[in-house]
């Protein structure tokens, strides 16, 4: 048997084909550029630079005087960039630029987050021309819109956002005027008795019998607070009684203007019952504006003079309980009245009678017997009736809309609610 021939002819065909492929593959890779050249392992790999695309600028940019305001404000609106897509981070936000000249230097005044489409510029002067640009902020560059303007801030005489308030005010005013005219015409207007009011006579009588003074505190607020005004109206009624019974009355106050008004009120009250001789300016005296300084002084008066009756009628704060507790400790009969919700619990706890909230104003109207005040009280009752009606109708409509899902009911409910929306 002949030995195997070393000649290539003795290799099998698949083996030869594999050898050819292995030999030629580097050559083929070199030709296609996919094989690293010699020494390529030592070169640094470079990452190609990211090219930030140009962002679409905001469109429909408008700048105009903010409506229904006192001036000093310009509103800038725009439609967001088409690149400002939720879930993407291409747009970082918007910047607002302002200039007083269309060709002047634009200064960046503020920036807002992505998807914003409005900005209120409140750093402007009235009656001055302003020009604006809105820029969309990208990763490295800001792309500005066209210049818009001029926009001029002006004060408006009519706040159209509060038309509903005007309408309601007109209805209430009409009701009040109607009742005032009825009262002036001699019509007897019914007002229910309030126990705190009935106790005023009793309290003044008690002080007279005991020969002790009466202390009247008209709150610690100034004359720009309606509760102080109501308190001084009650003071006039109390003053008439003390003048008739010749009882000593003391009114320490914490505001100079309240002192002046209190003196005028009391002088008039004493004059009206024919006892101006009993009136003295010292009856109404100023202590201090400082809240707790005033309290310290009034507490001192209470424990030294031991009044038989204490009236607290007006606006009170943290001093209410201190005063009422001291008055209670000296055995005085105490009648309080305030519309401060946070202080009412203390007066309820420590006083014999408390006029709660609007009862204070009702008491001042009732005691004064003034037609205007009684008419006003009746007019306010009309307001309460209106409030109760709309609350009930609104709640029933909202319930029906919620339960049925009916679009018409939902629309009616929303419309009614919007009538009472506060637009500031």
């Amino acid at each position: 048997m002949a030995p195997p021939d070393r000649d290539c002819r003795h290799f099998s065909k698949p083996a030869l084909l594999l050898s050819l492929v292995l030999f030629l593959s580097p050559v083929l890779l070199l030709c296609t550029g996919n094989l690293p050249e010699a020494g390529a392992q030592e070169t640094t790999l470079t990452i190609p630079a990211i090219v930030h695309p140009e962002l679409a600028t905001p469109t429909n940019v408008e700048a105009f005087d903010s409506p229904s305001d006192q001036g000093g404000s310009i509103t800038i609106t725009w439609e967001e960039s088409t690149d400002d897509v939720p879930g993407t981070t291409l747009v970082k936000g918007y910047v607002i630029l302002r200039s007083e000249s269309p060709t002047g230097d634009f200064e960046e005044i503020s920036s807002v987050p992505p998807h914003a489409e409005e900005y209120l510029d409140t750093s402007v002067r009235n009656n001055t021309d302003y020009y604006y640009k809105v820029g969309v902020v990208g990763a490295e560059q800001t792309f500005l819109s066209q210049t818009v303007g001029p926009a001029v801030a002006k004060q408006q005489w009519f706040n159209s956002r509060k038309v509903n308030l005007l309408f309601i005010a007109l209805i209430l005013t009409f009701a009040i005027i109607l009742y005032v005219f009825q009262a002036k015409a001699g019509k007897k207007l019914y007002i229910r008795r309030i126990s705190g009011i009935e106790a005023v006579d009793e309290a003044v009588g008690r002080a007279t019998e005991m020969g002790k003074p009466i202390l009247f505190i008209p709150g610690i607020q100034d004359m720009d607070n309606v509760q102080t005004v109501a308190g001084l109206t009650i003071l006039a009624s109390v003053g008439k009684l003390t003048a008739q019974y010749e009882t000593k009355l003391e009114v320490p106050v914490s505001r100079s203007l309240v002192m002046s008004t209190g003196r005028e009120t009391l002088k008039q009250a004493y004059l009206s019952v024919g006892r101006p001789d009993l009136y003295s300016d010292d009856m109404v005296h100023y202590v201090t504006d400082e809240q707790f300084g005033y309290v310290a002084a009034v507490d001192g008066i209470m424990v030294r003079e031991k009044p038989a009756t204490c009236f607290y009628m007006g606006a009170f704060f943290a001093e209410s309980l201190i005063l009422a507790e001291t008055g209670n400790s000296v055995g005085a009969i105490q009648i309080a009245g305030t519309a401060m919700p946070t202080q009412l619990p203390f007066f309820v706890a420590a006083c014999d009678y408390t006029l709660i909230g609007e009862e204070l104003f009702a008491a001042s109207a009732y005691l004064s017997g003034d037609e205007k005040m009684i008419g006003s009280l009746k007019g306010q009752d009309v307001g309460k009736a209106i409030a109760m009606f709309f609350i009930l109708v609104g709640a029933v409509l909202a319930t029906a809309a919620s339960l049925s899902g009916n679009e018409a009911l939902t629309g009616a409910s929303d419309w009614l609610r919007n009538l009472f929306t506060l637009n500031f």
Partner: protein
Amino acid sequence: MAQTLELWIAALLTFMIFSFLYKDNPFYKFAEHLFVGVSAAYWMVIGIWSTLMPNLVARLWPSSVSGFINMPEDAQPEYHFIIPAIFGILMLTRLVERISWLSRWAMAFVIGFAAGTNFTRYLQSDFVGQIYNSMYPIIVKADGGFALGATISSIVLIVGVICALIYFFFSKEHTGAFGAASRLGIWFLMVTFGAAFGYTVMARISLLTGRIQFLGSWLASIF
């Protein structure tokens, strides 16, 4: 040294005021008179520098106060501020008996202004705002069923508001069903007052704690 002296004065005055809890005494009288005198003078100075100077003198005569009141350098006199100046002077006519009636003009202006501005303020917050915030569904749905807690809350809100409004209705005698609703209204008010009372008492206790802590720091400075 100065700080120690301040601490001692404050601590002693605190004790003097607290002594009132026992009974009226000369120490309390001293602290009371000191407090009233100092605070009255302090408020007068505050009134001059925070109201009179910036709101009147600086407007009428800017150059006279430009050195010690923060205002624009180029501020020009605003002569319409002469009107409040006249009203202020009218208040002082009280010092002269013969023309003291003139002060009533200033008082009338203040009271009239307060009534006008408060009318819209209260109308917004106490009337319109109350109606708006009460117009909610009485029965509240949630996840296809009823939200029991929210429904009870809503019913309490509506019934409470209506009954409390009835209590403050003065044009009708509170008898019969109207009277029953009124009585329910006062119950709502009293429960609210009770909650507010507890809350505020807790706040006062924290004030007392603060004062006792101060006395503690004073004692620590001694020993």
